[in-house]
């Protein structure tokens, strides 16, 4: 099961967090709206702590979020169980996802005009061709968000260039794709790590406009392996 928490910069603190450390961090984030970068980071950590506590079934106060060598969030808890965690923030929203059933990656992008779909750095030639055929506004931004989510789920590699979107398509709720680890990334992954992930993106509304929220997860055990 995957738990997701979304937080808004400057929003009133969630009632359910009263008295916890997350509550304090939320209040700090709200009070320092001008320091957007630092506030978003704090807000993301706050959402992550809440998410991790729900996934582990433990009180928030027993969960600490640390940072790993590649900047990835790591959950420390006295409960002895481990979960996967991912955080993202963009403009005035922060989001976190926690999974006790395999890798998870999350990405958030505020929707705006961009020409990223033409970027040779962001996308391979075949990906750019797939994006050009995707019948949605801001197709490049959707694809970028999917790719970021997948890359974050694997937690390794040098960047999104280690991930290939192989089956971009429009779904009822947004956009989805399979994401394949490149051979370079595959060599870095543990033997039992999935080499293909499913990624779904959907629109969400924030206080300052629309956002794209993408979530990457491993295929379910009874799902045929993706090509």
């Amino acid at each position: 099961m995957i738990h997701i928490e979304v937080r808004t910069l400057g929003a009133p603190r969630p009632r359910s967090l009263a008295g916890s450390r997350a509550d304090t961090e939320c209040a700090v984030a709200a009070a320092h709206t001008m320091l957007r970068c630092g506030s978003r980071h704090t807000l993301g950590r706050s959402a992550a702590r809440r998410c991790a506590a729900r996934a582990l079934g433990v009180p928030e106060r027993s969960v600490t979020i640390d940072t790993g060598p590649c900047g990835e969030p790591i959950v420390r808890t006295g409960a002895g169980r481990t979960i996967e965690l991912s955080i993202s923030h963009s403009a005035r929203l922060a989001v976190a996802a926690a999974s006790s059933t395999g890798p998870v990656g999350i990405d958030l992008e505020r929707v705006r005009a961009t020409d990223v779909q033409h970027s040779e750095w962001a996308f391979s030639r075949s990906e750019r061709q797939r994006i050009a055929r995707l019948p949605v506004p801001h197709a490049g931004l959707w694809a970028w968000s999917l790719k970021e989510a997948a890359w974050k789920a694997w937690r390794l590699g040098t960047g999104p260039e280690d991930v290939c979107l192989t089956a971009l398509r429009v779904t009822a709720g947004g956009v989805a794709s399979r994401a394949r680890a490149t051979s370079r990334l595959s060599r870095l992954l543990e033997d039992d790590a999935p080499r293909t992930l499913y990624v779904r993106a959907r629109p969400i509304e924030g206080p300052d406009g629309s956002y794209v929220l993408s979530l990457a997860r491993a295929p379910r055990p009874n799902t045929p392996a993706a090509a």
Partner: protein
Amino acid sequence: MTREEMMVVIVRNIQEIIEGARGREILESHSMRDFGADSLEIVEVVSRSMKELRLKVPRTDLSTAKNLSDLLDLFEKAAAPVPTP
């Protein structure tokens, strides 16, 4: 194209694309993250700068750049004329 001219292009793109960088002094030692850039904004700045400067830097090399100085090093390397045998 000198390093200073490349920096002018990068700074202009940073200020156009990254809201938190507008009106701020931008130095080679800065990272785009220092101005609150998200991943998409970084991609846009680098992609647009490479296009304007007519440079091609391998994607795996670009990912190693930690700040603007590293990025300029890569751009300078890409712009250097290939020695003829």
